[in-house]
């Protein structure tokens, strides 16, 4: 469906993307996950044609669209700040894409309005067609923006931090709703986020980006359980960086362990001096320093038994090891 081939982009002196290769299948729901400045939004905008790559090609459905203007790519784009047209009502916003078509392909007024109403139903905003964007809540506006992008029947839907401007509760509802909608429409979609939880919850596959490069592409399970690089391990989920000596295979220099992958043992573990202990959802979060080198380690311990007291020394051992043949330079 989408083939990105060696995409590079430079903003002045600052390299934003270093040769991105990525292929996405029809109907997939893809998350571009990364910290700010990782190039994820730039990549999304290049796919849309809002930004022009310096090198490389973008192919949609086997067709090289690298030199096609944004208006000719047939790509739906949802903006972080909605970007609704304030002077048009909701129905006019949704119908905009149809109304700017060349005269020969343009549906008549009534057909455009009917299509808008239909999409309003799809995004569960029936009857709000005559409202103006200023009269809607943030969540409603984002759904109008989505309906507007869907109205042109895009072959690809791109969403730039679609929930970024919403508050936590609305975000969560909208997230669930969007996943259902994707399930129903099956339209190939890519969304950009810096929120790993959002990426893991929504996407079929997650593309983790850092400093203009792709670190890993994989299912949420793969990304979380089998991070390919130290960066992924640290960026997705919480991670402790332990010295490699702790039973690591030969050659490995650093060991990454998730807080819930560390167990408290009676003997044969590393000594840890307990600092803060607090409840974190269903588990105890124990923060402490290794006796050996004072490094900070976070542990999630079963909350059914009482936690160790602050100041106590306990023995810990990783249940599961992840090693990278790199130093901890990226910590």
């Amino acid at each position: 469906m989408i083939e990105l081939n060696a995409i590079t982009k430079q903003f002045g002196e600052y390299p934003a993307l270093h040769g991105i290769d990525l292929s996405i299948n029809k109907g997939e729901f893809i998350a571009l996950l990364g910290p700010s400045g990782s190039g994820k939004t730039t990549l999304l905008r290049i796919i849309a044609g809002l930004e022009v790559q310096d090198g490389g090609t973008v192919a949609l459905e086997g067709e090289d669209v690298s030199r096609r203007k944004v208006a000719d790519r047939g790509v739906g784009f949802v903006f972080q700040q909605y970007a609704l047209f304030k002077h048009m009502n909701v129905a006019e916003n949704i119908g905009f894409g149809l109304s700017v078509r060349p005269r020969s392909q343009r549906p008549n007024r009534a057909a455009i309005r009917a299509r808008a109403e239909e999409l309003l139903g799809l995004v569960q905003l029936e009857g709000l067609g005559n409202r103006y964007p200023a009269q809607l809540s943030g969540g409603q506006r984002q759904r109008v923006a989505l309906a507007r992008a869907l109205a042109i029947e895009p072959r690809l839907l791109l969403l730039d931090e679609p929930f970024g401007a919403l508050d936590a509760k609305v975000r969560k509802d909208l997230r669930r709703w969007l996943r259902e909608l994707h399930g129903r429409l099956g339209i190939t979609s890519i969304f950009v986020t810096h929120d790993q939880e959002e990426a893991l919850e929504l996407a079929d596959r997650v593309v983790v980006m850092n400093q203009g490069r792709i670190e890993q592409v994989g299912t949420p399970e793969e990304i979380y359980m089998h991070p390919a690089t130290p960066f992924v391990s640290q960026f997705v989920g919480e991670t402790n960086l332990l010295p490699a000596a702790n039973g690591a295979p030969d050659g490995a220099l650093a060991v990454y362990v998730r807080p819930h992958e560390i167990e408290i043992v009676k003997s044969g573990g590393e000594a840890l001096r307990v600092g803060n202990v607090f409840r974190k959802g269903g588990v105890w979060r124990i923060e402490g320093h290794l006796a050996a080198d004072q490094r900070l380690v976070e542990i999630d311990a079963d909350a059914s038994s009482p936690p160790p007291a602050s100041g106590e020394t306990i023995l810990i051992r990783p249940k599961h090891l992840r090693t990278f043949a790199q130093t901890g330079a990226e910590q």
Partner: protein
Amino acid sequence: MSDTYTPTAPSPWLRAFGRGVFFRKRSRSVLPGFRLSLGFSVAWLTLIVLIPLATIILKTLGMGWDEFVRVGLSDRALAAYRLSFGTALSAGLVNAFAGLLVAWVLVRYDFPGKRVIGATVDLPFALPTAVAGIALTSLYGTNGWLGAWLEPHGIKVAYTPLGITIALIFIGLPFVVRQVEPVLADLGKDVEEAAATLGARRGQTFVRVILPAILPALLTGFALAFARGVGEYGSVIFISGNMPGLTEIAPLLIVTQLEEYNYAGATAIATIMMVASFGILLLINLLQAVTRRRQA
């Protein structure tokens, strides 16, 4: 009462403090000087602005309807209104286009010398009108740099309504540019990008997305330029030629009446001009209210 602190609602803590220390009942603010500053402002406003302006109303009311109509609606006066409003309207329209163009270029594009050019736009605000008036007259006169070039082509500018319009274009341009500029700058790039992703061509985006968003500001700029143009005197009288009935603008007619000590005539003309101006401004405001209503 909400617990959020706003400048107009002093925090409970400060209010309690204020009561304890100052015993101010009238203004609940702890800040001093309310009576002094307001009293002085209102007194000064009344003396310098309100009382003098009220004399127009008094004079008009004391005139009697027949006389008011005789002077205020004489043929000469009617011709002057037509000229003043007509040229102000034409200049306003030219400025609406040119001002939009200049604002667009200043906001959207980068080019060498942009800042200096941005500052030039304010020249008509800073240059005394009489100076502009003689300079334009000299430029467009028969021997002027532009006049010498235009007149052989049959375009006569000095001492014609065209000359008046040019003077009013000079005066009015910054009003439009300065109104449109900030709105254009605030207009998010993302709406234009959204239009592009939906398949709109650049021209469609301009007409359907950008123009409606800046229309209220453009209208305000036009209205300000127009209102200024109707009352403008200094930059116009040199280039207008001042022929009664032909190139005599309404403000000049007022001056002429005053010079003849015909205060009633001057007042009648001034009143009609002001009523007409306010009427037109009101109309533009209404138009604006319609365009702006939904974008709040």
